Structures are given as C-alpha cells and as structure tokens.
C-alpha cells in the first residue's frame, strides 16, 4: 500500500476491520425504480424497474466483472454503489458496516471511487489536470501543496509525466491520456474499491490494452478491489476473477470466471457467451443466439424475467420468479433449470427420503 499521509494509525483503517474473509462490499436487496416522466398525474404511475432487488458481494482484492445488455441496470448499480443516487430499498455493507449509517457517508466516499466511460465529460474543462486530481484531497482537508504533490505522484504512476501534463487542460489530451487522468483522480483519495463503469470501452484497442495493464498494475500496487462494468466479454475474462451477469435489473448468474465462461447454468449467460466474436473462423456462430430486444423495464414480464426470449421456457417459468440460488461454491444462478425440484422438466430432481 502506498502511504502518502504519514504514520500508520493505531486503529485499523476502514476496509481492513472485518479481516480478509469479510466481503469488501455486500449488497442486499438493492432496488431502484425511476418514475416515468409524465405518468402519475391523472394516469397510473409508471416506474422503470432499473435495478430490481440485487444481491451480490465483492470480495477483498478481487475484480468483479458485470456484464449484460444495455439497459440491464449495470450503470444504475454502479451509481447506487457510489451513492450518487439513493436506493429505494436495500442495504450496502462496506466491510460489514452499513454505508450511510454506522459508516458515515463521507468516510464511505473516501473508500469507493469511480471512473466513468466518457473521459472528456468526466473532467472539468476549466481545470488543469493537477487541479482536477487534487480537488478531492482538498475537499477532505489535505493542504493545497500536499494535494498537488499527490496529484503529481499519481500522474507519474499512471504514466503521464507531471512536468509535461500537470498544467494542461483536458482538451489538450488524447482519450487514453484523459482516462489515465480519470484513474489518477479516482485514486487520489486512496480508495479501497474503484468502480470502472465501461472505463475502457471508448478507447481504441491498443490504448485499451495499455490502460487495462495499467489497471492491473495499480490494483497490485495499491491493493485495490475493482467492480469492472463492461460489455466486452473478452476484456472481462482477462480482467476479472468473478463475473456477474445482469438481465433486466436482476442478477441472472454470478460466479467465478471459469465457472461462468466454461459451464454456465443460465440460458441468458450462454446466449451472451455465444455472441462473443470468435477468433477461429470454424467456430463462427451462424445463427444469432438470442433474438429480439429485452422486454420494457417499465413493465417487466411476470415470472422469470428471461422467459420471453428463452428457448427452454415452460409454463412454470411464466409463473415463478427464480431466486438466485447457489449451484456450487463457485456459482449461483437464477434459473429454474438449475434449481432442484423447481418444477421445470430439465431441473434436477431429488427424491424425498
């Protein structure tokens, strides 16, 4: 761990108190419904079920990848975790402490930072690079000279020479350089968790690879934990220890990378994986694994969210909402086919003793 502040404090810092086995973040029943504009007045109130009851853990030191189609609630989950929007329901436990209650919000915000997709929009065009990076430490009471020194150090760490770049403005930098600045800015508060919301998606491939390697180096050097949101499954496979698949505001499947990529148990995950571009021309997918658009999140289907597009859907799928249930120690899926005695013809059956 880099220590820029000074002496180690006798009290264990936030994020270390629960010990290595305690998940860094535990999300329980997170729910956010956005009201639809123009509804509710002389009309029935409509809401977008953006995030509809989500549970997951992020373990200490891991990279959790989040994948799913556009509109499945990936970014909303990230913003809820960042406390940029307040959840309607649900709890966020940071190292066993409830964020906003036992752990004050300002302390929580030091621990969790975010890198956004749009590298240009996430930097204030009127501030120089060093001012942007030094802003957060200044807010938390670090003296100006020390904050600027920290900004220079971080610029150095993300591969931008402070002598050349610190005094520049965002528009004078390339997309990759700007994203490095955003990463440096996110690290300025020495957080434990960094949320990367499509952080490399807007970069071209060679720059993307550089930034990904930088992220891996920083993770090792600073002891970081990542929540890595992406639609690029190859990148997720490269970066993440565990993967969470989201569909229509719910977790479809979550588990270790190899379990998800090798033996997925949810038909949506397998469709998603089948849509991955293949290097081998012989393995090209000829038919689209999944057709149609996801249903409208204003009016999600009853039962399993995925039954409208699932090729294994049966009557029971239209009636029962499958809970996220553990399949093995490494994997959980929300599918009736993976649940014992669920009533689905493909479900494993266990005889009563």
């Amino acid at each position, binding site marked *: 761990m880099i220590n820029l502040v000074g002496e180690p404090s006798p009290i264990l810092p936030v994020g270390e108190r629960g010990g290595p086995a305690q998940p860094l973040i535990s999300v329980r029943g997170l729910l956010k419904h956005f009201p639809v504009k123009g509804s509710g007045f002389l009309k029935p109130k409509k809401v977008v079920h953006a995030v509809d009851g989500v549970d997951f853990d992020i373990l200490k030191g891991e990279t959790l990848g989040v994948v799913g189609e556009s509109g499945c609630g990936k970014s909303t989950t990230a913003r809820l975790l960042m406390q940029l929007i307040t959840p309607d329901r649900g709890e966020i436990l940071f190292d066993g402490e409830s964020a906003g209650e036992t752990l004050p919000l300002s302390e929580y915000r030091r621990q969790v930072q975010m890198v956004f997709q749009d590298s240009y929009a*996430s930097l204030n065009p009127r501030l120089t690079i060093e001012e942007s990076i030094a802003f957060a430490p200044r807010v938390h009471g670090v003296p100006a000279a020390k904050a600027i020194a920290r900004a220079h150090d971080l610029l150095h760490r993300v591969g931008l020479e402070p*002598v050349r770049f610190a005094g520049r403005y965002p528009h004078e930098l390339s997309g990759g350089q700007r994203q490095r600045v955003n990463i440096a800015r996110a690290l300025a508060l020495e957080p434990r968790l960094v949320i990367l919301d499509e952080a490399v998606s807007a970069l071209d491939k060679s720059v993307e690879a550089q930034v990904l390697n930088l992220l891996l180096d920083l993770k090792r050097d600073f002891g970081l934990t990542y929540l890595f949101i992406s639609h690029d499954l190859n990148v997720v496979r490269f970066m993440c220890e565990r993967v969470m698949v989201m569909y229509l505001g719910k977790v479809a499947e979550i588990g270790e990378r190899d379990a998800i990529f090798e033996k997925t148990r949810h038909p949506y995950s397998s469709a998603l994986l089948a849509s991955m571009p293949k290097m081998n021309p012989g393995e090209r997918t000829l038919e689209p694994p999944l057709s149609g658009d996801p249903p409208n999140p204003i009016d999600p289907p009853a039962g399993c969210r995925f039954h409208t597009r699932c090729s294994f859907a049966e009557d029971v799928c239209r009636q029962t909402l499958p809970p996220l249930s553990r399949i093995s120690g490494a994997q959980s899926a929300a599918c009736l086919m993976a649940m014992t005695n669920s009533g689905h013809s493909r479900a494993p059956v266990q005889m009563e003793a």
Partner: protein
Amino acid sequence: MSAVTTDIDAPVGVLVAKSPGFWSNVLRRLIRDPVAMIALAIIVILVLIAIFAPYIAPYDPSKGSVIRRLKPIGTPGYIFGTDELGRDMLSRLIHGTRLSLIMGVIPVPIAFIIGSTIGIIAGYAGGIVNTLIMRTIDVFYAFPSVLLAVALSGALGSGLTNALVSLTVVFIPQIARVAESVTTQVRKLDYVDAARASGASAATIIRVHILGNVLGPIFVFATSLISVSMILASGLSFLGLGVRPPDAEWGLMLNTLRTAIYSNPFVAALPGVMIFITSICFNLFSDGLRTAMDVKS
C-alpha cells in the same frame, strides 16, 4: 519503479508547464475579431465622452436662447444645430451620454448577479426547488419586457433610481432562465458526479465546477441585454418615466424634439442615432464574445 513505494518519487515542486487558460484563449480570439474590436473601441470612446463631458462640450447643455431655436445641422458654431429651446445639440448629446450609459449599463450587472444566483441555485438543486423557483420566474417572464418596465416604473413613480430598479427587475427573470438552463446541462456531466462522489459539498461543487462553466454563456447573454436596456431606458425617458427635464438623456431628448420632426427632422433624429450606435456596438461586442467563447480548443 518498485511495486511498493512509501515516498513520493515524482518530481515535486518543479516548474510545471502551464497551458494558457480558457479566458486567455478567449481574449486572444477576441482581439483578432476586427468587428468586436471596433465596437469595443466605440464603447470606450463613449465612456470617455461620458466621463469628460463637461470638458468636451462646447456649451452649457441646459442654457438655451430663444433666438437660436431649431437651427439646422451645420450652423456655424452649432455643428449639430440646436433644439427646441435653443440649446446646443452637440453639448446635449455629449452630456446625454452620461445618463444614457448609466441607465443602459447599470441594470445589467445587477440583474446578472441576482439572476445568475437564482438560476444557478434552481438549476443545481433541480426537482421541486427548481420547479418552484422557475415557475415564479415565469410569472414575470410572461409579461413583454417593455410592458413590465413601463408598468413597474409607472407604479414606482418617475425618476432615475426607479427606472433603474424597474429595468433590473425586468432583466432578472431573463438572466435566471438562461442561468438555469446552462446549469441544468452542466450538472448532468460526469465531472459533477465525480465531484459529488468525492464528498464535496454543494457549495464547493458550485464554486469550483459549476461557476467556471456556466458564467461564460450567462455573461454573453447579459452583454446582449445592455443594448435592450439602453432602448428600454430611452423608452422610459421618452414616456416621462425616467429622467426628467432639463437633464440631458437621449430618450428624453427624442421626446422633447418630436415636435420638431417636420421642421427639422435631422436634428430631431440625432438622439435616436446615438441610441442606435451605442446599442449596436454592445450587440456586436457580445456577438464577438460569443464567437470567441464558442470555439473548442
């Protein structure tokens, strides 16, 4: 570089090459704009005339003579002629610059400060606060600006201060609206979210991240209001709601000279020409400023 560092190994305290800031770039582009520079030069000349009016004016602007009434333009000694009371037009126009500029310029910065504050608060707060503030503003906005200015001055009574107050009130809703819409746009940008995520208070975010990005467009809009303010102020004086005779003010001069419009039309039109020149200069300058600020990088 070692994987674990405890000290700062980046060069600290070195001279960082600082890029030219946004405003110095704007200034550079503005200087290269000939139209804006000519307009600015005329504005500066008018301000100088206003300051040094007593030294420039050849005659006392309020001293008339019955035998010299309504001399045409070009009369020896009175190059712009005389008005209906035999006062020298040139001297009156020079002295009129003072009150006309005061009435045109003063309401705008005051309205700029108040209107921006209201608009930025409404835009940043959003939601119900925004709705409450902006719908109240809309009540004022619903009146045509001339009508509102006349009604307010009429209610407050004539006089310079009351005219200034009513003009300021007319401009506040307009500036607040622009400020609100610009702030609402900026507030949605990721860097504001990033600042919120860093735990900064609303006041700090507005000061560091919002103000620098919204004041420019509001400022440009406000400069364009100066010309409107000049015309409205002249209108108020013309109606007898602003400056009172015998003070020299271009709008008031237009009013008193309107009786001479058939006998001596060119002299009667002179104050109007001055109003036109001044307001178009402010307009051209604000256009130049807008262009200079629009360009990216």
